[in-house]
């Protein structure tokens, strides 16, 4: 499976060079990001609240554009003009799928079913094929009985599943996920992670932002840690990052638990990764 049309350049899908972004020109959100993402990689972005993870992902998806620096997709520079080209835009949108942090904004259709089929309809897929994909997703995500309801009336977890379905139905080669497991129960989290791993095994590139250290190891070949300076403070293999308590503590990713056992209080740092897996 070749995404970029040619096989030169090591299959680099996204390449960012010294990217800066600020909201309304005055609220800095990204300060000098350099990243390369290869085809088929599992990449995760971790960091405290407000360190620019969501902003970074939106830049990757061509929803907002850098103030400074260069972002290229398959060697082609992304900017506002290129998305005015309907053909490019359709190709890009069918290759790259984005699951928003806030499912409420991602679901804007009257019924769950319409929401799920929105993407492929816009991208011009045939109805028969849409129907087939829909049925498959309904089965995997177990959302049969939600189809005729309004997305508004669902629980947070149900909304998330529908949002995931509405992106997966496009069958994108690259999946960008912003906090896919926040607010989900352990079993649903498990199912979603399994789903992502299966997608990755079939060759898809998975880029995930998360605070949930439980899931980091499974969904990353490489972890990037975003720091308070809104730039990458460290990157490396999941193992190395997760075994660096000082780094995690510095970046609000672990907390100190204090337990009270009758009259004794004992305090120890606590890396959440140790719990399940």
């Amino acid at each position, binding site marked *: 499976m070749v995404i970029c049309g040619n096989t030169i350049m090591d299959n680099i899908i996204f390449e960012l060079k010294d990217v800066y972004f600020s909201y309304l020109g005055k609220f800095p959100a990204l300060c000098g990001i350099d990243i390369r993402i290869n085809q088929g990689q599992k990449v995760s972005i971790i960091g405290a609240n407000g360190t620019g993870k969501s902003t970074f992902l939106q830049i990757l*998806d061509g929803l907002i554009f850098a103030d400074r620096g260069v972002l290229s997709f398959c060697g082609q520079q992304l900017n506002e003009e290129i998305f005015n080209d309907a053909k490019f835009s359709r190709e890009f*949108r069918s290759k790259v799928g984005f699951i*928003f942090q806030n499912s409420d904004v991602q679901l*804007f259709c*009257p019924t769950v079913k*319409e929401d799920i089929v929105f*993407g492929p*309809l*816009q991208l011009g897929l045939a109805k028969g094929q849409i129907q087939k994909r829909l049925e498959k997703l309904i089965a995997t995500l177990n959302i049969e009985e939600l189809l005729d309801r309004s997305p508004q009336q669902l629980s947070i977890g149900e909304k998330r599943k529908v949002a995931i379905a509405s992106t997966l139905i*496009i069958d994108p080669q690259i999946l960008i996920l912003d906090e896919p497991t926040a607010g989900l129960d352990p079993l649903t989290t498990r199912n979603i992670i399994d789903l992502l791993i299966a997608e990755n095994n079939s060759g898809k590139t998975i880029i995930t932002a998360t605070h949930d250290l439980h899931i980091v190891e499974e969904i990353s070949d490489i972890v990037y840690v975003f720091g308070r300076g809104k730039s990458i403070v460290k990157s490396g293999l999941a193992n190395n990052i997760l075994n660096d308590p000082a780094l995690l503590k510095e970046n609000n990713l672990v907390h100190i638990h204090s337990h009270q056992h009758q009259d004794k209080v004992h305090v120890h740092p606590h890396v959440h990764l140790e719990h399940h897996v």
Partner: protein
Amino acid sequence: MKSNNFIERSIVGGLTFLKDSIFAEEVAQRGGFLQSLDVRVKIISFLLFILQALFTGSIPALLFLYALCLFLGLISRIELVFFLKRTWFFIPLFSLGIAFPAIFGPGEPLLSWQILGAKFSITHQGLQGAVVFVIRVITCVSFVVLLNITTRHFDLLKVLRIFKIPAIFIMILGMCYRYIYLFAGIIQNTYLAIKSRVGRGVQYQQGQGMVAWNIASLWDRSVGLNEEVYKAMLSRGYQGEALAWNDFKIRTKDWLWLFAVILLWIILFLN
């Protein structure tokens, strides 16, 4: 909690009203006769009924249409009392404003009396006109309400699309509809959040302030949300003209119904 509390009344009351009136799709999901018709066919037949009620001056024809409407309601699993309450609710408004003065219109006097030297008489023609008017209004209102409560709102919106109303307009209507619901939820939660922070008693003055603040923050949120929603649409390939999925199907039953309605229409029209 005091029930005459300002916030309670204005926010929670308003929301309950909104949810009950606009979002009550419960009736539309019952399996009755009208619910089972194709939405397009249903809308066309109701338009025909309403046109008939507007143009006929005959009391028997109007009564027939009204009875038909109630009958349709019954076979669509709508409780008669609920339906009558919803529809007759509008009548006093119209009858006071328009029908009542009409009974004194020109014509043969039925009943006359004098007040302070001025002579009032209720005339035959005036009375007939008023009766026709009231029945006509109640018939039209009943058909509109019946259509409204037996159809899911988004199906109505989709039919507008089929009738060539521009997509962007319908999209906006649909999103408004959806976001009214979302905002209703936000306000409800904000109210709960405030309540949980300030305790049970929220004073009147304070309450007014909060309502004003709520409206302002709501506006902010709606602007922010719009941007985000737009991004979400872009991300899934939206390019200015949204394509919708409709799976309306006209079956034999719908054709039979439409045929019967047109036949009835012609018969009533010829009389």
